[in-house]
């Protein structure tokens, strides 16, 4: 089976291991993830802060290219890319005048036929139904599933999971043999783009997240967003200096955790790329 794949910038750079683990998992389940040719930036935060039409035109181009390539469903692991693509689809479906303006400026046909899946939806639909029996090494750890801000918001558009108390990652981890803990910071802000401009703020915000996960006995934090991962993992020094203690709980992408459970090679899953050593 072939599905489309939109990596976005993060999965080609700072979170290569996310891409590696998604692809490794897909391969293990005989799914071919076909990258969209000539894809472009989703616009991220910058575009929609500057120009609405641009912020819609960039994701529309990606969706048009996917249509042209004959793809019906595309997997978008990055939570921010997923949000931009889904919001764009929604806005264009709601406003036909805007839709024609945007597609005209792109010069590419757009019908809105491509479904956009985030990593949870992808796992739910194509991996977990066949997971049982494949789990050779249950991920037998207490895990804190962290959703961040974009994976489940805004609910009116994404219509996916519960906005304030999401459960989808917890359910997936339960199926992989883990024990998800009930904790308070599932959807709190990690500091996002302040990572570069105000690292100390990220230390404080992400510090609360990691601190609470540790206090409640989590052995691993599970994420599904490159930004969350980089703040919770790469900014661990800032976090530790905010908390005044050294916390070495690793942060895993959900695809890495499931990969470990089905016995994939640690290197294939990119575990060696993390700043906080993955000991689980």
């Amino acid at each position, binding site marked *: 089976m072939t599905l489309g794949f939109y990596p976005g910038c993060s999965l080609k750079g700072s979170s290569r291991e996310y891409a590696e683990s998604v692809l490794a998992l897909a391969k293990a389940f005989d799914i071919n993830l076909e990258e969209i040719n000539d894809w472009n930036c989703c616009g991220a935060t910058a575009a929609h802060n500057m120009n609405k039409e641009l912020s819609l035109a960039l994701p529309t181009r990606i969706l048009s290219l996917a249509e042209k390539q004959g793809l019906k469903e595309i997997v978008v692991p990055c939570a921010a890319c997923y949000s931009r693509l889904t919001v764009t689809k929604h806005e264009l479906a709601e406003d036909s005048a805007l839709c024609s303006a945007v597609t005209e400026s792109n010069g590419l046909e757009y019908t809105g036929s491509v479904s956009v899946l985030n990593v949870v939806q992808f796992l739910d639909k194509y991996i977990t139904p066949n997971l049982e029996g494949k789990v050779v090494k249950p991920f037998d750890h207490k895990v804190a599933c962290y959703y961040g801000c974009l994976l489940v918001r805004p609910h009116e558009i994404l219509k996916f999971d*519960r906005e304030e108390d999401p459960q989808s990652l917890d359910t997936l981890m339960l199926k992989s043999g883990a024990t998800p803990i009930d904790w*308070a910071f599932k959807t709190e802000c990690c500091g996002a783009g302040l990572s570069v401009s105000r690292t100390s703020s990220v230390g404080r915000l992400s510090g609360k997240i990691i601190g609470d996960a540790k206090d409640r006995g989590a052995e691993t934090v599970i994420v599904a967003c490159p930004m969350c991962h980089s703040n919770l993992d790469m900014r661990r020094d800032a976090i530790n200096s905010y908390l005044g203690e050294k916390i070495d709980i690793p942060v895993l992408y959900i695809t890495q955790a499931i990969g470990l459970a089905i016995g994939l090679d640690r290197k294939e899953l990119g575990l060696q790329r993390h700043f906080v050593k993955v000991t689980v």
Partner: protein
Amino acid sequence: MSKIGVFVCHCGENISATVDCARVAETAGNYDGVAFSVDYKYMCSDPGQNLIKNAIKEQGLTGVVVASCSPRMHEPTFRKACAEAGLNPFMCEMANLREHCSWVHEKGEATTEKAIDLVRILVEKVKYNHSLNEIKVPVTKTALVIGGGIAGIQASLDIANTGHKVILIEKDPSIGGHMSQLSETFPTLDCSQCILTPRMVEVAQHPNITLYTYAELESLEGFIGNFKAKIRRKSKSIDEKLCTGCGLCTTKCPVKKIPSEFNEGLGKRTAIYVPFPQAVPNKPVIDRANCTYYIKGKCKVCEIVCPTGAIRFDQEDQIMEVEIGAIVIATGFTVKQPDFFPEYGYGKFPDVITGLQFERLASASGPTLGEIRRPSDGKIPEKIVFLACAGSRDPAKGIPYCSKICCMYIAKHAMLYQHKVHGGKSYVFYMDIRAGGKQYEEFVRRAIEDDGVNYVRGRVSRIYEKNGKLIVAGVDTLLNAMPVEIDADMVVLATAGVANEGAEELAQKLHVSYDPYKFFAEAHPKLKPVETNTAGIFLAGACQAPRDIPESVAMASGAAVKVAALFSKDELTREPIIAVVNRQAPPVYSSCVGCFLCVSACPYQAIEKEEIKNRNGEVIKSIAKVNPGLCQGCGTCVAFCRTKSIDIQGYTNEQMYTEVMALLNEY
């Protein structure tokens, strides 16, 4: 030859802003049969009505068309004016230029043209109008009040004190409603029970009030003045005549751990129980879902201990039929329950409670006898946080409206806390303080200034537990959106006031309308706040929208006056807009062929068979006959009649056809 008067109203600017009223009047003046045509700024005003009356008298008008607003509000006004000038009121028709034209279209030629069309079709219709006489129906001078909270109690007492009979039904084992659960009341801090319980007793003892607790409305039929209600008296499993209310059964019942509804789950009750010591009536009921005898088939401890032998395990629900003339709905409201705020941990953390639960903690009759102790471990909270608008004014939660009572009761809660826990710290997170009401603002200021309650303007994003404290994470918007965290011992959520479960079903039984939030709809938001769209059915209290005690009581008294006014006459007049079967000279008698399709089509069972007999008493023909007391004028029978023998008076087939032809410019 008809002599019709056309009166075009500007409705201030409501019509004249988009319709050229002078031109409408001028055009209408040229129609065949129109003897008089004029436009005026406010036709419903006294000078406007005089214009109509004078024209009728001076011109000898035979019909009137008032081109103004929807007939809903002012048809009675203009018909009355016509009657006063000696014209049969049913010779007056209204063209709805406002709702059907000026409000929904832009200013322009086409809009005025449409207004002219609307007037023309009614000019043609009125030519076929006939004088009609109002129908008189008798009034059953007994009122049914549904719901025994403060609104229902007030309405019952007020109606009963005018000398009319009242049947009060309450679904719970006792009357008293939410008010009986409250500790003190704002803005005076007088004890809720102390002002309520005497009225509860008064209801029970009033010679004009028949009280049925543990009873619900089963069905309703009929119309204003002549309703028939079926009431389900749920089995209490006791013989009320024998029971003395000694309470022995409730002390001996072995099932003791059922969460008490009266204490909002903070206390326990037995399976045979009286909801609270001051209950009216003070006699127990058996909660069959939790009673060991009904679950396992044995126990009967209550029967053994009862000194009067009043326990009746085999008692069944009774359906009782009553005839009533008017209904007051006073079914109240409820508060939004758990799982609505996963981010606030309601249901997960025992010390996150609702406002109603706090009332029970603060109440002298509550599970802690009025001491503020938290549910988890019974400790006195040193720091307490109140969250206003927990759900209210939050479209994302599906409740865009303001629940209205919360700002005041939160101020009261915080004040009570400060009075009872000296040295305690209290915080209120709020969006705006809505303290509109007599002495309300002063009350809130007292909480802030005299009792030192800390008001923080901002929302709370999350509540979580850490080191045995509830961390309330919010924002202070008056400090430049500074994040605030308070480590509290207890949190009180002012959850939104919502309609009762089953409100929709009740509204459908009563044929009254309701809003998107299932609150019952008043007939007019300003001028008919206690009436519903169904004649003879009135509203009181929080079943219409969240209301505090003074408002509920005022509404209840208002509804009671409406009922008393209805009962002040022996007969009611009804509009003669009903179906009639035509009658003709012998030997035909009527074009009705007696197929009686109409009988099965009629939703009101208003059509019966009539036998036409000759002088010898032999039946010559069977035809349909409409009972004018039951017919609601819906017109279903007209559509069913194969021989066009039935017509709605005032809306005959001929009149409808004429209107259509007028619209098509055939006249």
